[in-house]
């Protein structure tokens, strides 16, 4: 079943097309990779999907609903949650608090009860707290739960970023370069975690990543874009064999190594 569909989406910056008439289908429950050289328009695609940018033309359809031009928090409410290319966390908060913020959509706490601090409110808080703990456990972050996020080493920060996104109970996760700056061990662990997220919760995952080997290992399907245009699509082995892709991208990019 097609969960997310981009139909002829274009986004221009001052006359330059960052993406141009891009079509993209994402199936329910798959892990799909979005690759392309620097400036190919991958992050712009994410921005358009999550509503941070409004496309100049085309439509974004999620589960049969036109979500073009919705505000980011509305898109998140519908179930699409993203992470960012650069590590984006709430730096001053502890890891646990970071996840607690991520749990926002499930919180449902009213203003009055929060002010009055009623029993039911305290129960809700405790419940949220347990959920946050579970998520930290899932990512094996329980040991650093009380450490401010800004003090964590890079690899753990990346993980925490995904944990925050997962806390928002997405139907679809958009991960923007989740593996950058990680050492090989961490990469393997992250790949396993992403697979587990999909397998356990049936969450669709879209990954933008430069680490080719990891992408090939992780993704079931890969879409290649260049200059905002889709140039190839298929299983990892097909992409590796695709001449056009090799010419445009793999051959000229050191990441392909």
């Amino acid at each position, binding site marked *: 079943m097609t969960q997310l569909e981009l139909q002829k989406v274009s986004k221009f910056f001052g006359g330059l097309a960052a993406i141009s008439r891009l079509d993209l289908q994402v199936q329910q429950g798959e892990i799909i990779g979005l690759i392309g050289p620097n400036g190919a328009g991958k992050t712009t695609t994410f921005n358009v999907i999550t509503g*941070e940018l409004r496309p100049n033309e085309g439509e974004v359809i999620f589960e049969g609903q036109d979500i073009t031009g919705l505000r980011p928090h509305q898109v998140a409410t519908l179930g699409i949650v993203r992470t960012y290319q650069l590590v984006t966390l709430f730096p001053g908060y502890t890891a646990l608090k970071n996840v607690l913020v991520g749990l926002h959509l499930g919180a449902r706490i009213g203003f009055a009860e929060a*002010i009055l601090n009623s029993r039911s409110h305290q129960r809700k808080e*405790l419940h949220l707290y347990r959920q946050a703990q579970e998520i930290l456990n899932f990512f094996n972050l329980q040991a650093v739960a009380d450490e401010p996020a800004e003090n964590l080493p890079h690899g753990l920060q990346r993980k925490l970023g995904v944990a925050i996104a997962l806390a928002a109970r997405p139907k679809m996760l958009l991960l923007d370069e989740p593996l950058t700056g990680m050492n090989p061990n961490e990469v393997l662990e992250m790949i396993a975690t992403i697979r587990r997220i999909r397998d356990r919760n049936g969450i669709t995952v879209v990954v933008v990543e430069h680490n080719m080997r990891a992408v090939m290992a992780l993704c079931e399907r890969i879409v290649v874009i260049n200059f905002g245009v889709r140039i190839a699509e298929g299983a990892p082995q097909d992409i590796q064999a695709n001449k056009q892709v090799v010419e445009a991208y793999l051959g000229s990019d050191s990441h392909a190594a």
Partner: protein
Amino acid sequence: MTRVRPDPDRQGKFLGEMKAQQKSRLYFLGLFVLLGLVPLVLRSEYYLHVLIAMFYHVIYATTYRFILRTGQFHFGAHAFVGIGAYASVLLVMRAGWSFWLAMPAAGLIAAFFAVLIGYPTLRLKGIYFAIITWGFGDTLRFIYMRFKEPFGGPLGIFAIPGPNPITIPGLITIDFSQKTHFYFLALALMIVTLYILHRMEQSRFGLIFGAIREGDRLARAVGINIMNYKVLAFAVCSGLGAMAGSFYAHYTYYISPLDFSVLLTIYLAIYTVVGGQERYAGVIVGTVVLMLAGEVFAGYSHYQLLMYSGFLIVILLFLPGGLISLPGLLTRVGSRAEEKEGEKFRNDPA
């Protein structure tokens, strides 16, 4: 892996946190009980007045600081205090309402205006918000000045009645003929306001406000409607400030457009910075210390602005955390070695 630590019992810690909160709540309760006993000891109208003025200024300043903490440079606190004062005075004097209805109504009216101003402007970065809130304040002053009916024009409104008497038959009558009565009302208002702000900060709402400040893009990405939260904080704080404004009007019996000029907001900004805005207690300390200083040095008041602004500059440059960070700083000097150890631990790559 140097950072593996014994896994504490999470749930236990959480409950422990709550216990700690309850403990601090006890301290506050003690402080308030102490403040409640003051009028029994202190008979001088002057000292009561100083304390009353301090109480409503604490309300102004803490609500102001809360708006600042949502990342907005608010420059129109005076506007909302003014709305509160004028609205409740008009409701009491023209519509014949009871003060006890008019005060919350004034708060609601101010909150309504805050929503009206907040929605279009809060999505912009600080400075536009500052200009609009300031301009809004001056627009209101213009309206008070120009419309003698019902706002009294530049001469203001005088002979404002005090709050309606409360009588519990056979037990007690509070008719606001004495300062003591106002004192308890101001104290109660301050406690309620501080409690609401405290809960706002401690609860999930505080968590979200902080998250918006720390990283608004990420907050949006996990489904937080930033606008709603900012407007909520703006409206609640403006409403509370307006209720204090309403108290002020019925306490001084006289208001005029002059009372609600941008000077008030600038004073609040100074209290906030000098006390330290990181923590809630900071702004209270700032307000109390500066107002006390103002009273002690009342005879030299043409140097007061000089003193206040000089103090502000010094604090900004040498003590960015404000007065409240002073004790922490002093203890840290003592335990610097320990601190360094900690740094080492932090910088140690995993």
